[in-house]
């Protein structure tokens, strides 16, 4: 019996009367409509069956049927199946039973829809604001369709987020909203006893600009990938690919094998870049700037690789629904292969220097420890989970693009600490290089870059897509709409899942380790906030033309022009 039938039967057996529909549009996806009465029990049942909670999606269906929808998504990694539990509540009584007590990583999802859609979750352990600004008026829920996308309520004075009570005998150290180890505005209140961390409260989402709302109301299907790419400056293509895959899945489109290979190359270049970038930052966070500079020197080569291939050093603008925008010509392929050879040598030197450095061991081993059981309980993903003995990798568990054709290892260690995360990410660099080599060699020579996409996509179809970003799994959920744009598009970046467990990793560590413990999940707050970065620098402007910019970025190290 295949996994989908087994899961569906199990749910039917236990919650038969409450199940309103079961559909499986593909052999790896199961959508179950269930009454809200049974939602909590069904979620628990899925977790008991071995599912990993991914994220929840809230929807406004008031205009269509007077209800607010709530979809919880789960992954059965070993069975290669994604499951969505779809439920709803009448708009006048949007109350659900909280699943957070049993599934802690659902905590943010529920708080998010408390803010954005006005749902209520009974039994939620921390029903505080998550996303809305502290001076946002009560009762205005911006994701509801009757709230315009550009609503700007008047700012209010004298409102502030109320931090959690500090445990007795501790002092509060404010990390943020602006702090050198954060790079983006977020606020951690760290409760310390001497130098030992005894707790932490988090207030983020300070740059929430409502990308989802924007894309559901203002732009069209094929403009979204470019917005999606700007969710994150590091794993932009991950979001673009993930979105495109979700729409393709919902609309039943199948792109050419060649464009799947090109997407794979794109994603692996991005992974190379991200791993080297993170390694540098990790060095910086433990006060080792030489690792920082050397890793970034090597990373520069990856930027050149990307520029050769896509025309851009970052934010490649390559992905469209139905395929990709640029081809890999034989010349580009030869250049990429040559660059991979030099890159591999440089990374090997870097790896030996970093892995063998006992001084780095002292700062990372045993730091930020989380047991395997806790890692499962918090639904952690990516290198953070792979450093804690869980072999999770979307590329293997839920293959997409061309990964099912390629041979590669998923490095897993079980030290459970920052050191493990570092080892996993360094080893993955070599796997990425191997994947790139194979992908370039095996790529089919023909096939359209872009398939024919019908003028109008069928409406109200659901698509669930996962992509392994360098930091972990990204999840996108798309419900197709009628006006040539998604009715609902939900983004869950890996940080959204991993950040929720940071307080658990911080507990009883030294304050000096705060930056690296947070840094090990490679937090991307802009992904989590789903920010649109708008350069609005005013005042004195220095205009650089294209030639000047190129000159600046290409000036060889050491040369002073």
């Amino acid at each position, binding site marked *: 019996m295949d996994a989908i039938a087994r899961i569906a039967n199990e749910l039917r057996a236990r919650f038969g009367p409450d199940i309103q529909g079961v559909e499986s549009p593909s052999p790896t996806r199961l959508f179950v409509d269930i009454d809200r009465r049974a939602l909590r029990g069904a979620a628990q049942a899925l977790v008991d069956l071995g599912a990993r909670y991914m994220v929840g999606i809230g929807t406004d269906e008031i205009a269509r049927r007077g209800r607010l929808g709530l979809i919880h998504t789960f992954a059965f990694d070993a069975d290669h199946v994604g499951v969505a539990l779809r439920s709803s509540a009448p708009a006048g009584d949007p109350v659900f039973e909280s699943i957070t007590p049993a599934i802690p990583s659902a905590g943010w999802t529920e708080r998010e829809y408390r803010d954005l859609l006005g749902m209520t979750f009974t039994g939620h352990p921390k029903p505080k604001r998550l996303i809305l600004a502290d001076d946002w008026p009560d009762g205005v829920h911006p994701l509801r369709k009757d709230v315009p996308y550009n609503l700007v309520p008047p700012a209010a004075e004298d409102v502030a987020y109320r931090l959690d009570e500090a445990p007795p005998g501790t002092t509060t150290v404010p990390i943020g909203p602006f702090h*050198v180890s954060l790079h983006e505005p977020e606020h951690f209140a760290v409760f310390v006893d001497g130098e030992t961390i005894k707790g932490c409260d988090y207030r983020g989402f300070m740059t929430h600009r409502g990308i989802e709302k924007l894309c559901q109301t203002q732009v069209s299907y094929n403009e979204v990938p470019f917005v999606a790419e700007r969710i994150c400056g590091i794993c932009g293509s991950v979001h673009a690919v993930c979105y495109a895959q979700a729409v393709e899945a919902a609309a039943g489109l199948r792109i050419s094998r060649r464009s799947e290979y090109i997407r794979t190359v794109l994603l692996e270049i991005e992974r190379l870049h991200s791993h080297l970038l993170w390694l540098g930052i990790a060095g910086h966070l433990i006060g080792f700037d030489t690792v*920082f500079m050397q890793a970034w*020197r090597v990373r520069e080569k990856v930027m050149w690789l990307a520029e050769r291939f896509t025309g851009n050093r970052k934010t490649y603008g390559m992905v469209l629904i139905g395929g990709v925008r640029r081809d890999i010509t034989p010349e580009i392929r030869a250049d990429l292969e040559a660059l991979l050879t030099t890159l591999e040598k440089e990374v090997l030197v870097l790896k030996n220097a970093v892995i063998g450095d006992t001084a780095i061991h002292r700062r990372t081993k045993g730091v930020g420890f989380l047991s395997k059981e806790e890692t499962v309980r918090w639904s952690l993903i990516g290198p953070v989970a792979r450093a804690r003995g869980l072999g999770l990798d979307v590329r293997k568990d839920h293959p997409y693009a061309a990964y099912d054709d390629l041979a590669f290892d998923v490095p897993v260690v079980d030290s459970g600490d920052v050191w493990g995360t570092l080892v996993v990410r360094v080893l993955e660099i070599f796997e990425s290089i191997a994947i790139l080599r194979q992908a370039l060699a095996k790529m089919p020579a023909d096939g359209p870059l872009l398939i024919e996409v019908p003028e109008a996509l069928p409406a109200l179809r659901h698509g669930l897509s996962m992509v392994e970003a360098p930091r972990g799994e990204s999840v996108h959920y798309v419900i197709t709409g009628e006006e040539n744009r998604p009715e609902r598009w939900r983004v869950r970046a890996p940080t959204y899942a991993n950040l929720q467990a940071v307080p658990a990793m911080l507990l009883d560590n*030294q304050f000096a380790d705060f930056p690296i413990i947070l840094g090990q999940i490679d937090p991307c707050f802009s992904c989590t906030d789903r920010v649109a970065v708008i350069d609005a620098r005013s005042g004195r402007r220095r205009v650089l033309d294209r030639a000047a910019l190129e000159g600046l970025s290409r000036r060889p190290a050491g040369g002073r022009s």
Partner: protein
Amino acid sequence: MSVVAVFVNVLLFLLLAPLFEGVMRKITARVQSRQGPPVVQPYYDLLKLLGKERINSAGTWAFRLAPPAAFASILAVVALVPFGSKLNALGGRVDAVTVIYLLTLGGVSVLLGALASRNTFAAIGASREMVTMVMVEPVLAMTLILGAVRGGSLGLGAAVFSTAARGYSVATAVMLVAYLLALQAFVAKQPFDIAEAEIEILEGPFIEYSGPDYGLFRYYLMMKQMFYAWLFVAVFLPFLRTGAYAGDVLAQLAGTFIVFVLIAVVGSTNPRLRIDQAVKIYAVLVLVALGAVGLAVAGI
């Protein structure tokens, strides 16, 4: 002549301390495959800081007093302890304990400024600074006391020029190792730049300082690190002497340069330690230094 030597001393430290800082930055940059700032960058930094407006962000007199007090104390130290191989006009009137007092006064001024800033990060930095002072300064004190034991006098001449006068002994060799290991902590560079730890506590004790006050602190830190580097040369490398005053000064400056190269290389190839890890290392260093003094008392 010996009065002139006082001025030569002070001027050399004032003029060259930023240069050595610049050298260190340049070497660090080269280890990191960077171009690095010009070696004179620290002069520019100081000039810029000193030309800015003074802001008393904490609003207390102690906050104001701390930077000049720290700077004055290090000036006094370098006025007393002589370049070359003879005591200057001031050095003969004080003893080794005075120098230790004055050095500690500089550290206490930093603490005073940090605690007067009323800032959480400054407070954490101050507590780390205090631990470092209590645990590392004894190595310096023992170095001078070792000289005093061997020379039979607490006078500055005996303390600083003991190796020159009596040659190397086992005790000197042990102390030399302890001093070298403590050097990174004396000058607050990696792995022991814990009290400032930019990435965790944002320069700790100095977070509230800006403009001329911060400039004075920076100048103080540069002079202090040059003093510690130079003292190593003066105490442990007595063979760097030519007989002529000017020649001795140049030879010692060359030695100091080499010590700075060492500091820069060690600093750029190590991550920062945590204070709990550092304290264990400091404890060993203090014990080794104490052992060296013990050996000297026993005449070994």
